[in-house]
């Protein structure tokens, strides 16, 4: 027998006398990241962190932060500091379009009949989003759109009156405020952190800019808005967490070193992996498996509803 390279076998360590299972002591199981595991397993984070488990979460998150002893606490906004419900992103866009149409109609006291319908608003917004993301000048390889540009283009393409985009923006902010829930556990963490002299910022990869995010937080909970020192959004800076480029920008703004920051967020890539890579402490605050499943189901229903009215939304509709 000849041994050639084509033989695919190797091992960790050759043991001379592998024995039977009965001779061995029982194995010991270790698990990690208790907060993230609990969140993944819960039914809905909104109930989980704002209900009976609030104090436990505050304690565990506090311990994770204390291990690093940072001077700055950074929080992702959507699905972290503000918790979303079970609607898919595509559904939210549809409902925002509906509300935007109502607001545009009220703003001019214009008969709703003469306005494009809500599907037109939806199409105009999604097309404007794609166009604005694509045409905005990239920065260090990052691309991002801004809601104000998006709504301006959408309003123009629908031939709406001057200022209609402002009414559409109000609809966007109101919708978000009424569909988001403050994460009470993290709000407690923020207050505790500030009480110890730390500063708190919000850091978001989103088409909403600092002004819009601040407005949404204020509409939901003015006290939390007051507790935030600053807001950074990829919509304003183009640089993003997902690319890992925005962390340096924040450090420069505060003239602080990476070790002074601790970030919490739901997206593993942008909020955890890239944050750690940048030298920040990080805690994963993931969406639960059940919530993600319900959003997926909602998106499936959305596809069916749109198909029924003859529209193919597969190129843009997401969970």
């Amino acid at each position, binding site marked *: *027998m000849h041994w050639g390279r084509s033989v695919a*076998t190797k*091992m960790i360590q050759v*043991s001379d006398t592998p024995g039977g299972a009965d001779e061995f002591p029982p*194995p010991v199981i270790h698990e990690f990241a208790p907060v993230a595991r609990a969140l993944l397993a819960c039914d809905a984070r909104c109930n989980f962190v704002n209900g009976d488990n609030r104090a436990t979460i505050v304690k565990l998150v506090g311990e994770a932060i204390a291990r690093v002893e940072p001077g700055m606490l950074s929080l992702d906004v959507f699905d972290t500091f503000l918790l979303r419900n079970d609607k898919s992103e595509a559904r939210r866009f549809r409902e925002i379009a509906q509300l935007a149409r109502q607001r545009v109609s009220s703003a001019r006291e214009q008969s709703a009949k003469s306005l494009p319908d809500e599907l*037109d608003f939806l199409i105009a917004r999604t097309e404007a989003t794609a166009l604005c993301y694509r045409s905005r000048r990239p920065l260090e390889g990052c691309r991002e759109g801004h809601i104000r540009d998006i709504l301006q283009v959408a309003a123009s393409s*629908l031939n709406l009156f001057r200022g209609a985009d402002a009414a559409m923006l109000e609809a966007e902010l109101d919708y978000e405020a009424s569909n988001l829930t403050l994460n009470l556990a993290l709000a407690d963490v923020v207050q505790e952190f500030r009480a110890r002299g730390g500063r708190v910022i919000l850091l978001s990869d989103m088409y909403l800019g600092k002004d819009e995010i601040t407005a949404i937080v204020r509409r939901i909970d003015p006290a939390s808005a007051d507790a935030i020192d600053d807001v950074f959004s990829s919509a304003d800076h183009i640089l993003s967490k997902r690319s890992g480029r925005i962390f340096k920008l924040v450090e420069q703004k505060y003239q602080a070193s990476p070790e002074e920051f601790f970030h919490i967020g739901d997206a593993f890539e942008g909020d955890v992996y890239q944050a750690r890579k940048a030298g920040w402490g990080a805690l*994963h605050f993931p969406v639960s498996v059940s919530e993600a499943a319900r959003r997926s189901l909602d998106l499936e229903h959305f596809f069916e509803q749109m198909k029924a009215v003859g529209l193919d939304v597969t190129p843009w509709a997401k969970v």
Partner: protein
Amino acid sequence: MQDLSPDSSQGRKFQFGRTELGPVVADYLARLHTHILAFEQEHGAKTLFVSRAGIRIRRALDIFLRASDLPPLVSGEFFWISRLMVAKGVWNRDRDGAIEILSKEFEHAPLFDFVLAMFRFSPRGAKLRPTDRELLATGQELRVFLESQNQFAQILRNFFEQQSKLFEAYVKNVMGDARCALMIDTGWQGRAQTLLTRAFPEIDWWGAYFGRTGSQSSDRTNWHKMIGIMFESDRYDPARPETCVVLNRHLIENLFEPAGRSIEWLAEPGPGIVVAPDADSVLADAPTKETDPIFAGVLSHLEVLQDGNKPSLLRRRAADAWARIARMTVHPAPADLALFADVERSADFGRDLKVPLLLPKDLRFEGDTPALRIRDALWPCGQVAVEYPGEIATPMQKKLAGASGSVLRKPPPIAVRSLRPRVAVITRTMDRPMFLKRALDSVSRQSFRDFIHVVVNDGGDNDTVKAAILGANTDHARIRLVDAVVNRGMEAASNLAIRNSESDYIVIHDDDDTWQPEFLEKTVAFLDGPRGAHYGGVITHSTYCSEEVTPEGVVVRTRTPYNDWIENIHLMEMAIENFFPPIAFLFRRELWERLDGFNEQYPVLGDWDFNLRFLVEADIAVINEPLANYHHRDRGDVTTFGNSVIAGRGKHLEYSAVVRNNFVRSMVKRGHAAAATLAGMGIYLADQRTTVRASNQRVAQIAQDTSEVAAQMRSLGPSRAWADTYWFALQAVLKALAENDTAKLEEIAALASGTAGSAAARVMSLVRPPRSIRARTPVLPANLERASARLLKEAVERQEGAMRDIPTPPDFDEAAYLRQNPDVDQRVKEGALSSGYEHYLRYGRSEGRHRPLR
């Protein structure tokens, strides 16, 4: 007087324009309008309707806006260019770019044609009488020609410089203060935009095209700034019917192409005033129901817009129309063909040539076939319908469209997640934290996220393993550490980890191996999909990573394909030896349960045993992509960190017999005599294979030794075309030397001038005639390229008999060439040609036939 009744040919075209293309164009114009507004509002862009298609697009847009009660477009200008005009226009700023595009367009045409084409509509062209023999070369030699002192080259250079100067002034006038341009045109690869981007970097050039589509050779550097409004795709996708335009771009190009000349030159009637003299001929375009019924039909649809202009309505109407247009593009009925029967497309780029969209069924040349006409047709699916009846045409059209076997796209797959992860990734480790960290990173970087990573510490220091996990930048919530407390052996460790997890699929990721980020995504998608339903597991191809442990860490020295011959998995093949690594193998948990897990009795080769037993129960599919990396420390100190293959050969030898014999016995016990025989025979097959491999290696070595000349030949020329030219020249020189034909050698030498160059020296080094002959050998051509080309050209022109004797170069695959060209094969068999290579030299090169390599 033309018959314009609905049943007449013109009437049907009008109707097609109104009911089919009309809704599509309306949707396109609505979207185009959004793009124009966005670029003007957000970027202060100048909108440029690019001649010639832009002229009709603008006309259609104006009608659409009027019918929609939208404000008219006050901005936007016509941009009087063509690709040829831009090539001339960028001459002073980007000469390489200009020559590149000109060479490509005239690659197979004589320079004679090129010179005339450059002056097609310019009054200066009428005075030119290019008869010089230098102009017999083809466009492949364009750069050399344009840099030469030839009188026509000098005239052209002066002309290009003058046109480029005017073009620069023209661009400046058109753009004014704007720094961003949005070019509106039909499509498809934005070549003019690419040239302009290179030559005028101070302007941010964007393109809004009807569609964007490219080929493998497309320059995609600025692709992101070329917006295909209706589609961006290189191929037809039945789920996106609008991509059918890829199969017949002329459907749209012809629609928007106005009458009038292509813009190929600029003039300066007064100081600072630059005009395109041929613009008036384009502006005079006045399509009517009689002259262009399809476009007239489209305009008729736009003028009324019966359903209104709401985006959702436009979108739905367009979707309905696209479905019908896609059907007729892929499977046209005779009535559909009739709509385009008289369409001719202009070759443009300075040439007057017109090419019909559909070729008549007549022979174009001796040996012409339907297959060749379909290959050459501008609308291949349409040509199939011309050539064949429906029952034969349909499958051919499907294949040409790339739609065979494809299914309508469903919405993106939605993973409805349960608490049970889809995949359990099992990593066995023991006291190797630096490898473990790499493995943790490999798993963590997977694009597929629904997994649990079970790390089993097989008797090593558990704190070390824990520290490695905690220190890794990974998704810790997905990691479970199983401390086996004592060393149980490799297979027992795997079983222990699997028992301590839940999942649908399992994969063993050894602590020293790695994956490409798409490994889980692609393997899980395969087993989840309809094809995967027939399989118990799937492997991907692997890359063998030869690495070394150094004080700086683990360093991968080389990466080579590992057993990349694997196309499918035969039980017979597995009976010979294990030939894929565990890192490449994702399998169903159900199989692991049915097989009672890995055999814990084996210290080595447990995976081979598992694979053998697995294949008795189920098949294993192969994904032909190297997504798994199989790492081996086969360099430096192999004792401490060596793989078992490297460091434990003795045990492998011992257990190869044990595993095989146990397998045979178990098969006999279960009454599987055939499987038992198969496995037993494997040892002999392995020996035979080794012997054959050794022989093959020796043969390969001989082939390598004898291919040196071919390799040197290849190194001579900058391209394959030059290699053939050199080959021909070399044969001529060799023949002359062998025959001591000094006259011929002198003739060759006379073809070139200047001093001896390195290329000539390389030919000399190949030839190396005896000293006695060499003393009388004239100086070899200094300008080797020119002399070689001339030799070949003249031989072709004179129909020289010498061409019959030309030997086939070592890298030319004669058999493949004859197989690919049945017409040539026939001529060779008839004796009209001595070989396929003779045909290739004489005709094949200029006809653009494929040159198969051996």
